[in-house]
């Protein structure tokens, strides 16, 4: 075999860089190439990937690390390192055409962007189409169909259809989180349990497991990029991990159980950008209340709401769930927080399954954009489900409260328990106020026990209820009498009946609720938060 000349070796080195790769060209081990180099006095590779001229030229052209990086297919930080290496620091003097561009060039993606939102992408993938347009109707197989305490109603319609078997027992989840509707027309919980046994539905959670959507997320039945259906507006909560959660009627759920298909309209999307950082004592619930106030029906009706922005990206899943939960009553089809590291970490705790999240294109076409800066936000309170009337806690502080309800679906997670326990530790709630705590799920309750939060809450005088919607409904309806005022961390779903029965009810964050429980009047939590 011919030994390559020095010139040839240099050329190959410039092209392939490593001995191993050069060796592959000749079919010899890297050791031999190194030996040749030593003989011909060629050092190890020293040609940088990008020359100084190239970096200088790109810098002059764009004057921006991110944009220049896109050209080389490297990150913003990557380009900055190259600049440091060559000491290219001066801002370009002349503005070039590229710098005047308003739109960022396609960020390193090979394929041309198709201007799609997350929901469009999810529905396109599910329907097997390349692209779906807003307004299209797709007929797809869902990844998950969730029914709650009213599963009896779904079974009623399922029997009407005359189907013998459900489409796929593994994709159906039933969580009995509440007592079924109070009439005799629909099968009871007993009939539901029999149905579950007969149809071999494995994912069944009997009473006491917790609130439906919390249980489903804790057990990772739904994954990012999937389509999950539910029978009430709370199905939207699946959006907190980057899935599409949509709500259906009982009939439709029965048809989905039987046929394994559902029709969904591709909605327009509203982009919500949350900027800034919350101050001490201000939580995701306050952000949610203000956001719900800022969103008009025009922004939300039949829309998918995508939540972006640095503040949203830094929120843990529990906070994201609080936000999706509070927006669910706004008439939107879905709320999605794009999948990111936070969601990945949350999922890694429970599962090892692979999943395929989807992100919106950077130039996706949104029907609307709503921006929210939360830097100067103070704790907020909403009165009687009226989101026009969300106001800072200072404006209503001092109003007497007869009952405080902590937890529920909007704020019944371990992180919320931590906040409440921190405020209530070593203190006793006011004798004038009843305080009930509804954990989101059995898992939350058990973790709160382990971490001593339950002990703190009991010692300070709270009543601990069992996890689930039934006890939440009970706390919200049975104990509040006419002429009394209540403050809850729940969402509009929980308080509907109270408002209909013309009781006064306020909605606030766990911190505000805990401070209120201590004082017996609506109180600002910031003085209790260190």
């Amino acid at each position, binding site marked *: 075999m011919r030994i390559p000349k020095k010139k040839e070796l240099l050329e190959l080195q410039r092209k392939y860089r490593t001995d191993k790769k050069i060796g592959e060209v000749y079919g010899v081990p890297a050791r031999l190439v190194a030996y040749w180099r030593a003989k011909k006095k060629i050092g190890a590779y020293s040609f940088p990937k990008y020359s100084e001229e190239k970096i200088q030229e790109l810098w002059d052209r764009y004057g921006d690390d991110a944009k220049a990086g896109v050209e080389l297919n490297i990150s913003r930080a990557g380009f900055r390192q190259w600049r440091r290496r060559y000491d290219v620091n001066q801002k370009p003097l002349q503005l070039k055409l590229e710098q005047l561009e308003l739109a960022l060039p396609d960020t390193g993606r090979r394929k041309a962007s198709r201007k799609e939102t997350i929901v469009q992408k999810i529905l396109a993938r599910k329907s097997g189409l390349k692209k779906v347009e807003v*307004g*299209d*109707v797709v*007929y797809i197989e869902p990844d998950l169909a969730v029914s709650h305490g009213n599963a009896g109603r779904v079974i009623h*319609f399922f029997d*009407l*259809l*005359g*189907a013998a078997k459900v489409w796929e027992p593994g994709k159906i989840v039933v969580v009995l989180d509440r007592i079924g509707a109070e009439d005799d027309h629909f099968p009871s919980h007993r009939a539901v349990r029999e149905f579950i046994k007969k149809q071999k539905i494995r994912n069944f959670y009997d009473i006491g497991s917790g609130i439906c959507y919390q249980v489903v997320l804790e057990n990772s039945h739904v994954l990012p990029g999937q389509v999950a259906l539910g029978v009430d507006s709370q199905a939207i909560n699946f959006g907190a991990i980057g899935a599409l959660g949509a709500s*259906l*009627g009982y*009939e*439709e759920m*029965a*048809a989905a159980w*039987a*046929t394994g*298909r559902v*029709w969904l*309209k591709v909605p327009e999307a509203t982009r919500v950008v949350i900027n800034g950082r919350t101050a001490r004592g201000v939580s995701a619930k306050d952000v949610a209340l203000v956001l719900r106030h800022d969103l008009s*029906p025009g922004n939300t*009706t*039949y829309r998918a709401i995508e939540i972006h922005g640095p503040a949203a990206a830094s929120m843990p899943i529990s906070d994201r769930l609080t936000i999706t939960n509070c927006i669910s009553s706004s*008439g*939107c*089809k879905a709320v999605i927080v794009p999948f990111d590291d936070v969601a990945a970490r949350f999922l890694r705790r429970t599962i090892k399954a692979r999943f395929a999240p989807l992100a919106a294109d950077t130039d996706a076409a949104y029907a609307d954009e709503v921006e929210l800066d939360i830097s100067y936000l103070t704790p907020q309170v909403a009165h009687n489900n009226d989101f026009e009337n969300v106001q800072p806690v200072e404006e209503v502080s001092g109003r007497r409260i007869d009952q405080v309800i902590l937890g529920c679906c909007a704020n019944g997670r371990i992180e919320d328990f931590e906040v409440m326990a921190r405020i209530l530790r070593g203190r006793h709630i006011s004798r004038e106020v009843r305080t009930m705590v509804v954990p989101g799920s059995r898992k939350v309750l058990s973790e709160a026990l382990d971490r001593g939060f339950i002990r703190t809450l009991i010692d300070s005088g709270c009543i601990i209820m069992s996890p689930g919607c039934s006890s939440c409904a009970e706390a919200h309806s049975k104990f509040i009498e006419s002429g009394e005022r209540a403050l809850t961390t729940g969402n509009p779903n929980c308080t509907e009946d109270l408002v209909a029965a013309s009781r006064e009810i306020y909605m606030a964050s766990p911190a505000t609720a805990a401070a209120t429980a201590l004082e017996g009047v609506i109180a600002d939590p910031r003085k209790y938060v260190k």
Partner: protein
Amino acid sequence: MNRKIGGRVLRLGRDITLEWIALQQCPPLGEAPEAFSQLLEAGGSRQKRDFRKGDVIVAGGNFGMGQEPQLAVQALKAAEVPCVVAASFARAFYRCAINQGLPLIESLQAHEKISDGETVSIDFDKWEINCKRGAISFPSFPEIIGKIIESGGLIPYAKKSIGK
């Protein structure tokens, strides 16, 4: 489903809610069209409207907002409303109406061009509405919605598709 329908028009504004029906403040609608007029009035349109059985409803945006869309659709069917034309529909109402086999047409133009009380005919083969001020075309139903409406609702359609 009838491919050609027609009737007198009842023209309404935007954000019409039918949730009063759910609160059962009236006798069943099929029997008392006057009650239905009152409901529509309470639901957001300004003056009392003269509703007759079999009227085509033409409305502005966000038609059918509010809770209990199921009952709202049942009421419309009982009142023999053959079709609702609106600039846009609330989501729950849209799903419910399609699943119960009530055809809905989304058209902004129709709301602008059609006036109250005139007679229109709707052709589901040519996909156009014929009114005094000419023909207004609207997009054809997506395949699956066409099939569901054709079968008279989601339950009959699902029955058919599982072969019962």
